[in-house]
C-alpha cells in the first residue's frame, strides 16, 4: 500500500476531494499547513510598515491506497489540483507496510 501526500492550494480542496471520490477513494485525511517554495511569499503592511510573509497557506492531503490504486489517485489529484500557476504544490508517495482499521481490527487492503 502507498501513502500519497499532496500539498495543494487551499481553495482546491473540494475539487480534489470530489475527484478522489469519483475514482472510488473512500478515505481522506487533510490538514492545514503552510508552505514555502518557488511561489515565494508576499509582502504585507501593518501600521504603515512592510513585512514579508514567506509561508503561504496550503492544505496537506493524505490518502493511503492499495498499490494498484496509487497511479489513478495521483492522476486524479494532479488533474483536480492544477491551476498551472506557480505554487500548485507537490505529490509524494511513500510505502506503507501495514494499515489497520481501528474499529474492526481489519488489516491490509480491507482496512483502507
Amino acid at each position, binding site marked *: 500500500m502507498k501513502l500519497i501526500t499532496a500539498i495543494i492550494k487551499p*481553495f482546491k480542496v473540494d475539487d480534489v476531494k470530489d475527484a478522489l471520490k469519483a475514482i472510488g477513494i473512500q478515505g481522506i485525511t487533510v490538514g492545514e499547513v*503552510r508552505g514555502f517554495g518557488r511561489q515565494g511569499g*508576499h509582502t*504585507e*503592511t*501593518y501600521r504603515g510598515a512592510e*513585512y514579508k510573509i514567506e*509561508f503561504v497557506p496550503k492544505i496537506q492531503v493524505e490518502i493511503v491506497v492499495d498499490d494498484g490504486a496509487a497511479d489513478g489517485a495521483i492522476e486524479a489529484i494532479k488533474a483536480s489540483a492544477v491551476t498551472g500557476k506557480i505554487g500548485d504544490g507537490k505529490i509524494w508517495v511513500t510505502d506503507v507496510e501495514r494499515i489497520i482499521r481501528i474499529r474492526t481490527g481489519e488489516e491490509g487492503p480491507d482496512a483502507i
Partner: protein
Amino acid sequence: MRTFKPFRYAVGAALGAALPVFIATGSAFAEDEPLAAETVQAVLDNIWVLVAGILVFFMQAGFALVEAGLTRAKNVVNIMAKNMADALIGILCFLAVGYAFAFGGDGWFIGTSKFFLSGQAPFDWGSSGVLNLSTSTFFFFQVVFAATAVTIASGAMAERTKFVSYLFFSAVMTAVIYPVVVHWTWGGGLIKRINIGDAVYSDFAGSGVVHLTGGVAALVGAALLGPRLGKYDANGKPRAIPGHNIPFAVIGVFILWLGWFGFNAGSELAADSLVMFVAANTLIAGAAGGVFATATVWLKSGKPDVGMAGNGVLAGLVGITAGCGALNFLGAFIAGAVAGIIVVLAVLFIDRRGIDDPVGAVSVHGVCGLWGLLAVGLFARYDDAFLGREKAGLFYGGGFDQLAVQALMGLIIIAWVGIMSLITFTIIKKTIGLRVTQQEEMEGLDVHEHGSPGYSSELLGMS
C-alpha cells in the same frame, strides 16, 4: 447657566477681576434673576437628546460586530474598515452638505441653506429651529442617524466590494441620497404636500427614512455586485457560507438594541413622557421579533439559529421604529412579531433569488422598514407620532387613509433611493469598478485591500 471650573474662581481672583462671561446662551441668566423652570426643561431636552445621540453613535460598533460575525475571517478587517470609514465620511459629508440638504429650508425637494452649519448659532437653546434643541444638539443627533443609514449597505455588500468604491458610495449616500429622504419627512419637505384625506405620513424614528433607505441601497448594491464566489452552486442553489464568529454577531445585536433606545426614544427630540413609552415599545417589539424569528426558523429548518434570532430582534426593532410613538404595547408586540416572521422568510426568499446578502441587511432594514411604515397604517392608536388624530390605524377604525399614505411614501422612498443608488453604483462600476478581483476575493480582502490579516498568528506569520 454658566458654570465655572474650580480653579476658575482662583484665576479670577489672581487676575484681580471677575472675568466676564462672553458666550451668550439661550439659557444664560443673571445671577440675581431666578431660574425659570422652562430653562431647566430646555437643558433637560438637550441633555436627553444628546445622550440618545450618543447611544445611536454606539450602534456603529453594533453594526460592525454583526457584519463581522456573519462573514468570513479573511474579510474581517475589511468589514471593520468599512464600518469605521463610512461613519467618518458620513459625519464629515453630513456636516458639509447633508445637514443643509435635509434641514436647510422647506422646499418640497431639498434644503438649500446651512451648508457647513454656517450662520447657525451653536449654543443657544432652540437655535436649531427644532423645539428647544440647540444647533449642536440637533446636528449631533441627526449626524449619527446619517452614519447609521449609510452603514446598513456595508453588510449586504460584504466580502466582495472594493474599499475605495464603498467609500465613494458612502459619501454620496450621506451627502445626497439620505439627506433628501430626511428632508421629505423630518425636514418638512414632501410630507407637507402628501396627504390622503386627513392622513399625514408618519415615520417617528425612521423605519422609512433610515432603514428602508439603507435597505434599498443595500439591495441595489448587492444585486449589482453579484453573489460572492461559491455562494451558488452550478444549479444556482444557494450554499451556506457560515459566519466566522457568532458571538460577535450576538453581541452586535445587543449593542444595536441598546442604541435603538436612543434611536427611537431620542427621536421625540425632547424630554417628555412619550420618551419612556417609546423605549418600552422598543423593548417589547425587539423581544417579539426575536421570539417569532426564532420560532419561524426553528420550524423551517429544525434548529433555533441564533444569527437568525438576532436578525429577528433587529427586524422587530426596525418594525417598531416608525410606529414607536403611535402604537400601544399590543401594537408594538404585533409589529415586532410580524417583523420577526417576515425577516426569516425574506432572508430565505432573497437568498433563493440570487441576491447574496451575507448578513440579511435587505430583509432586516429594507423589508421590515417598509413593514414598519405600514404597521403605523394598521395599528396607530395614539397621536404621538404627529399623525394629527388618534386611532388612525385601520384596526382602530381609522380606515385606509393612513395605510395608503404610508404605502405611498414608502414607494416614493424606494423609487428615489433605488434610482439614485443605481446611478451611483453604475458610475462606480464603469469607472473605478465595484468589485475586487477573483483572486482578492478568494484570498481575502484583508491582505489585499488593507495590507494584513485580521487575525495574525505569531507562529508562522512573520519572517
